[in-house]
């Protein structure tokens, strides 16, 4: 999650202790390069998403080329390159879930948190969502992952209860594990993070076409 306090900008750079932790990773693998994803995990855990500054710092800490690190980050859907809500819905819409009403679940989630697309964050900063491919729990369809937990046999009522619960309880200050994301982000907007209020205000304007899904992005990063 972004470390933030009212009125101060979100952090875009990693703290010293995280960088120290990252520098210790390469020794844990037969070859140091394997540390790149665990390192990006740590970075994302601290900042909520991978800022360009963070990726550059990870690259320096691991003595890798920044372009290489970004190439890895853009390939995998669990790395976010743009801000996400404090709680994120990953709703499976692959076949087994679709056959049991996943598309209606997605509609309900969107309506309930008040966003239209996966690149938006709800006005209160609490929620964002993403449609994902099969999560390996098809016998519980329709299902989703909310932050780090699977939720099964989804209905509109269940979604409402989960949302109400999160709205009423104080959000956690630090996440349990790195939040995960999607690969919507071929050309991450190089904006440095904005104050919270500003981000909310800006959100509704960020309208992009619905279909710029990953393959192009992955491929775009190929060359």
């Amino acid at each position, binding site marked *: 999650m972004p470390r933030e306090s009212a009125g101060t900008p979100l952090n875009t750079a990693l703290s010293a202790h995280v960088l120290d932790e990252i520098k210790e990773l390469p020794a844990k693998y037969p070859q140091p390069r394997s540390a790149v994803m665990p390192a990006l995990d740590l970075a994302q855990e601290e900042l909520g998403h991978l800022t360009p500054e963070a990726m550059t710092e990870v690259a320096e800490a691991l003595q890798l080329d920044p372009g290489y690190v970004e190439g*890895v980050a853009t*390939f995998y859907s669990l790395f976010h390159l743009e801000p996400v809500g404090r709680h994120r819905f990953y709703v499976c819409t692959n076949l*087994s879930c679709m056959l049991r009403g996943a598309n209606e679940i997605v509609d309900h989630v969107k309506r309930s948190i008040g966003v239209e697309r996966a690149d938006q964050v709800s006005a209160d900063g609490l929620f964002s969502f993403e449609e994902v491919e099969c999560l*390996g729990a*098809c016998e519980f369809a329709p299902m989703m992952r909310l932050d780090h937990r699977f939720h099964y046999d989804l209905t509109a009522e269940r979604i409402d209860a989960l949302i109400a619960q999160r709205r009423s309880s104080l959000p956690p200050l630090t996440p349990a594990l790195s939040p995960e994301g999607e690969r919507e982000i071929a050309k991450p907007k190089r904006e440095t993070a904005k104050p919270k209020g500003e981000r909310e205000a800006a959100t509704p304007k960020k309208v992009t076409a619905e279909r710029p899904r990953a393959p192009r992005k992955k491929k775009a990063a190929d060359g």
Partner: protein
Amino acid sequence: MAELRGSHGDQPNHILTRWFGTPDLHKLEVYSSKAGGYTALRKALVDMAPADITNEVKTSGLRGRGGAGFATGVKWGFINRDAPGPKYVVINADESEPGTSKDRYILENSPHLLVEGILIAAYAVGANQAWVYIRGEYDEPYRMLHEAIEEARAKGYVGPKPLGKDYPLDIRLYRGHGAYICGEETALLESLEGKRAQPRSRPPFPAVKGAWGRPTLLNNVETLCTVPWIVNNGGAAYAKLGTEKSPGTRLMSVSGNVRNPGVYEVELGQTFRHVIMELAGGPPEGRRVKVFWPGGSSAPVLPESMLDTHTDMEALAAARSMGGSGGVIVMDDSHCVVRAAHRLLKFYAHESCGKCTPCRIGQDWAVRTYERILAGEGSQVELDILQRVSDGLQNGRCLCGLGDSGGWVIDSTLRHFREEYEDHALRHECNVGKVMASA
């Protein structure tokens, strides 16, 4: 304990799931005392030579449960045990094939079963280090497997002298980050090495040059979980189950339009009618099975008329499909085949790693063609394009199986449901009731 939706308890054909449902089975103490856990490890390390273990696995006839169905013992034999330097066992716990949830079912119920299987395999092929590549979204299975490994470490099963044997064994976990292609074995190795997961061309095969350039045995979770039973009971006893060429049992995750979706342990050779209509309870009241995917979304579809197809790999090959990952997706007659195919092509297009042109371009092309057809803008041209794209994706034109998979979805749905495609493309109507918007 995880909710058990599927096989558990004492049944004649329950090898993997026999002890599922035992309270606290995920704890080493219970796994050992109630389920006879780690007796196979003891037998392997204390009483057997590594070559004997591999021979038992060969005798069992066990075939990989990850998708390709390759003979497990033969694969183990490819690793030169005496080659100097490190060798690795890498476990494929990436489970991302749509319709497949069996490895999760094992990890959430009996993580020590996998730990035991890994340790035996590592000893047999001459590796001291195993890596489990587990998909990033599996938070709970990750946690459970991590705890199981730490319990086994505390007990000394993982460590410098497991069961007193001077043969160090270690298991480490590596999380995936959301990419279906990481399930393909060489893409998985690239990912483990900290790279973008794009498949390698073979040869060299992982057995010769795998993880970090070293000889590597790569097996699926379920495959290795079968090994303790084989060590305990002998390969010949395993070979008696199932059919001659597809021995044993396998987990089939049945999902979609059935009354009792779940992960069922099935003796190979049973029919899909048994799996879908009996174990999973058949379609909802008043509905019929229209089509099913017998081995994950990548396995060519079979129509209702082929429910009596047997589950062994030979029978499936004869039916022009495959056993794949064991994921059985059932669709009833209230759903549209063209729409389902479109959804799967979106999946393959989304997950294509972009390395080969037919896959990178073809899958996207197919998606756009489906979109025109579903928008009521189809014609014979669109049907021809689909067939052409499908042909272009198959038969070795792509580096890995992901390309073929998209092609098989198109090809098999077109082959069995031509009329439904023609309804959409030529007559601009959908026979499951909904008249198309612009028709």
